[in-house]
Structures are given as C-alpha cells and as structure tokens.
C-alpha cells in the first residue's frame, strides 16, 4: 500500500512539475539554461554565490551542483512559493533575479497571415455543439451553433464565442463539463456551417428542450422553430 501511495505521489509530483515547466517555457520563451543536480560551470557558480549571499547555501562556491546546492535551491524555492524541486528553471531563475533571455522578435516585418486563424473558434463551437446536441439531427446541430453565433452579435450577450459559451448558467453541457469531450465529426461540420453563415433558426437567441426545461422564464419566449428535440425562440 505504502509503496503504491508513494509511487502515486511521485507520479503526481512529476506531472505537476512537468506542467509547471511546460507553462514556464511558454511564457518566458526563455532560452535560459536549466540547472540541476550534476550541472556545473559558471552559471552554477553564480547561483551558488547568490544563494550564499542570501544565506541559503553554506558550502563552497565550486561551480558544481551537488547535494548542498540542491538543498539550498529547495529552501529558496520553498521560501519563494515555487515548486520545491531543486531544479533551477526559468521561474526560479527569475525569482533569483537572473536575467532570463527573452526570444527577441525578428526586426523585419514578418507576415502574420499564418498566425491568425479560426481553427480555435471552430473547435470550441464544435465542442459546445457536441455537448449540447450530439443526439440531434444535423440541422439541429447547425442550429445550436447558429444560436451561439447570434448571441455574439446581440447587445445583451458577450461578444465573443468563448464569452457566450462559458457564460455562467448559460449551457448545461458547459456547467457539467461535457464541453471538454472530443468533438464529434458531424459537430465539427455543423460548427463550420454555422460559422459560414448557415442559420436554420432565422436569428434565434434561445433554445430549450420542452421535455427537460426547468426554467419557467423560458416558456415566455416566442417559439420560432422546432428542430428535433429542441425549440428555438427569441
């Protein structure tokens, strides 16, 4: 039991650290070297000097990252709210006040045509459709996508697709986490059609399932169209 628990903890820890490092590397875009047990050289010497100055490190400044340095780094990390893993990554370097080398943007104008895309929005919309209407006929899936897009253009709703989808209390599939499922293929197609302007609802802002709707208020909406199990209205 104990062994399993230990192993599990170790795996969890590793995953945590892993994701931390992952995040780090993206946000800093840093080319800075990571220092760990076994590293050596001028960088380590500098690290030891700094740690010694701040009373974390008592050993010799020899430029070799050993047990003493490891413990000192861990102590430093604990004190500074970092993951105490004894590895000097970008976050720790930053906390130490070492220059973290940022990736300089190229000086000449670079085309940004490739950078801007709608893939993210298509996937997000497809996820929402999958969560809300995977059992519905295709036209009903396009309709859900269209309602979400109609909302982004309406003054009473958020202006972005993410804003509408993640608006608290707006969609049950979001609240219960179904939105995080892999989107179905037909829902990806439906999301594309909706983004390309197909709107089977004729501009509706609301839909509900009359069999399961719990909100009384929703019944005060005018029904414009019925598609599959859903009613659409304004």
């Amino acid at each position, binding site marked *: 039991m104990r062994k399993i628990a230990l192993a599990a903890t170790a795996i969890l820890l590793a*995953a*945590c650290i892993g*994701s931390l490092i*992952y*995040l*780090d590397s*993206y946000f800093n*875009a840093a080319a800075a070297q990571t220092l760990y047990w076994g590293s050596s050289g001028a960088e380590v010497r500098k690290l030891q000097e700094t740690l010694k100055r701040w009373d974390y490190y008592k050993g010799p400044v020899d430029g070799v990252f050993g047990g003493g340095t490891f413990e000192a780094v861990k102590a430093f990390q604990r004190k500074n*709210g970092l993951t105490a893993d004894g590895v000097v990554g970008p976050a720790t370097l*930053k*906390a130490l006040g070492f220059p973290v080398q*940022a990736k300089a*943007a190229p*000086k*000449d*104008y*670079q085309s*940004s*045509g*490739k*950078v*801007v*895309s*709608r893939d*993210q929005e298509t996937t997000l919309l497809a996820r929402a459709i999958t969560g809300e209407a995977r059992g519905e*006929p*295709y*036209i009903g899936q*396009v309709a859900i996508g269209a309602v979400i897009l109609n909302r982004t*253009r309406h*003054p*009473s709703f*958020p*202006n*972005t*697709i*993410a*804003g509408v*989808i*993640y*608006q*608290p209390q707006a969609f049950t599939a979001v*609240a*219960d986490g179904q*939105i995080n499922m892999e989107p179905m293929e*037909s829902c990806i*197609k439906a999301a594309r*059609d909706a*983004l*390309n*302007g*197909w*709107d*089977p*609802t*004729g501009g509706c802002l609301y839909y509900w399932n009359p069999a399961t709707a719990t909100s009384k208020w929703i019944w005060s909406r005018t029904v*414009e*169209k*019925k*598609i599959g199990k859903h009613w659409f209205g304004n």
Partner: protein
Amino acid sequence: MKYVLPIVLAIALIATGLWGYNQNQEREQLANFFMNTNQRLYYDLTGSVQSITTDLSKLMVSGQTRQNIILYSNIWKNAYNAQEKLSQLPIQHAQASKTEKFLNQVGDYTFALAKRNLDGEQLSEQELENLEALHNYSASLCQELQELHNSVFKGEVWLGELVGKANRKLNRQAKEENPVDVQFSKFEERMVEYPELIYDGPFSEHVVKGRKPRLQGDKITKEQARKKAQEFLGEGTVKQIESAPGSTGRINTYSFEGVPKNQTEGKGNPIYVDISQQIGYPVYILNNRDVPKANISPKQAIKRADKFLNEKGFKNMMPTYTMRYDNVVLINYVYKQDDVVIYPDLIKIKIALDNGEVVGFDSTQFLTSNYQRNIEAPKLTSAEAREKATIRAQIEEEGQLCIIPTDAYGEILCYEFEATYKQDKFLVYINANTGVEEKILKTVEQENGTLMI
C-alpha cells in the same frame, strides 16, 4: 445485541461513503466552474491578441488619419482587454509579467500615437519600425498562446497545475464570486467591441434588417412550396419531402426535409430545404452527406455552381472567395450590377467534389438586400482614389468599383484596391465620391481557402 456494533459501523460506513460522494460531486462542480472560467479567459485573451496583430498589420497600409485612429483605438482597447484577461488567469505573476508589460505598452504606445496623429503628425521612420517590431512580437505571442492552448486541453494544465494546487484558493474564489462582481464583469465584457472576423468573404456578416426588397410579393401555399423544394433538389434526388415546423424570423419560410433516393428513411443524412413563404425562393439547403473522394477540381465545381445559380434564376452572380473542407468546396457569390460588385448581396453555395452535387446553399443575405440599385457615376476616378490610399504599401493600378455595407446598414460606393505590404495582403476601400479610406481588410491565405479579416 451483538449486532449493534456492526450495524452502527455499517451505517457509519454508508454515511461516510455518501458524504464522500457528495464532497466529490461538489469538488467536481467547482473544478468545472474554475476550468470554464479559465478557458473563457484564455480564449478571449487569444482573440484579443489576434485582433491586435491584425490591426497592427493594417496600420502598415492605412493611409489616412481617420483609419489610423480607428486602428489605434482598437489596438488600445484590445490590449487593455487582453491584459485584463491575462491578469485574471491563475498564472503566477512571474510567469506572465513580460506578456502583461508588452500588452500594456502596446496599448500605451498606440494611444500616444493616436493623440499625435490627431495633431497632424506623421509617423517617423523609427516609429514605423517600432510598430513593425510590436507586430512581430504580437504575432509570435499569438502563436505561443495557440500552442499553449493545445496543452490546456490535452494536458489539462488548468486542472493539474492549478486546481489541484488551488483547492483552498478555489473555495475562497467561490466566496468572492458575489453577484455584483459577476454582473460588473459581464457589463465590462459587453463594453468591448471585437473587430468581427468575417469568415467567408468581405462583409458577409451584414444582414439588412427590415428591408427585404426581394421578398415583396404573393404568399405561396405550402403545397406550392413543397413542389418548389422538390424542383430545387432536382427530380429523382429526393423520394419524399416531409413538412417540418415552419420558420419565422429573419425570413418567413416553409421547411422541408428530404430523404435521398438511395437512402432509407430515418437512416443516413436527410436533406433540409427552406422555401420563402413570399414568392417561393429557396432560402437554404443543408446536406451533410459524406463526400469520400474528389473527382472534380474546384474550378469545375465553380462551373457547376454557376450553372446551378443560373438555372434557379439567380442571375449576374460572380464567384469571389472559396474555401475547401475535406472534399467540399464552399463558394461565395456576390451580385454584380453593371460593373459594380455589390458585396451585401451574397449567396453561398457548397459543391461536393465527388459528383458535383450542390450540398449547401444559403441566400438569406441576398434575399434580404438585393434590388436594382440606382448607382450614380462616382465623383472620383480610380486613379484619383488611388492617390488617397496607402503610401507605404504596393497598390494595384486599377481599382474595382463596389458597394460595401456600413455598420449602420447603409451602403457606400467604393473603389477596392489590392495592397501588399511585405508578405501580407490587404484590400483597401476608398470612398468613390469623397476619397475617404472607409475600410481595410486583411486577406489571410490558408490551406483551405482565403479568410478576410
């Protein structure tokens, strides 16, 4: 008596189990809420940075103060918004401080340039270089955010990295979510107007409200509409057309559901057709069948679409932009009156590349805006308009006369010029009467087609 202890223990065990289950449920709900909030912030952040990138590149080709100011203020607003979103994400300050600084500075800088531009000062060489550098930086930030996003979904960074660590924080956060705050943040949300992505050709999001010139006429009966739907789909394509509940809304329609000839009812993909109640125009077709392979080229597909539109009575339509997904091509058609391109009058058509069948059609915009316009001769010639346009970009010689919609559902007669700045391409619209730079669109060429932003 000897059973008392086991019973008590059993009850205790069950109670503990239930309690644990409840706790777990609650934890899951909170985790979901937390995750959703973060996802949303993240998407909005990415969206804002994309807008900043696009607007910075548009600045390179903008030639008039008026357009500059619009772009500067958009950047300023989006930079503020992005910074705001970033600072709410549970990312340690140390991780994101550079990005925050960058966003703040982009905002500040463009605000300062806007003020100077209003005083009539032009950009210096150095400032132009700065803008280019900012543009590059924001483009790479954009890319990084998109890459990170993949790991947010796949590796569940928010959950592993943040929720696990932040359980205590989470409870506190839930307490702090008081209704006033939520309301306020929603309010603030709506104050920000995002530049809309125009997905399928210039100005396609435009819908004329209330004015439906094409739809003035006699109401047809359901039976007549049924025949039209049958006719529109072509003889033999459809076995049976069932009536679905009719649609009101933007256009009043009769809705039909058809089952293709070689399919049994209730299986496979039905075809959906809506026919307008007035006059009986086809409004849309949706057919989600699989298209396993491509036998014809996109060029041939355009020919098929041309023929289809002609047969169905949509004359003078000109293909503009195409997008290809899997084995289906989406073609945007706009109306052409004499030699003027009328962008508001848009029809979209999808052709399957296996047999050239029409698998999608949408004439909502065309039907709500098309009429014979009285177009007066422009006061400026193409060459005069060209002089009013961008100074920095390469610009084509001859402009194309066109009508573009305004945000307030009006229409403006413009010259459209293609402009190129280094590797990026744009469309610049110059008012054909006043010479004002009305709009700049960036054309983004992707694998599957061209995107207008």
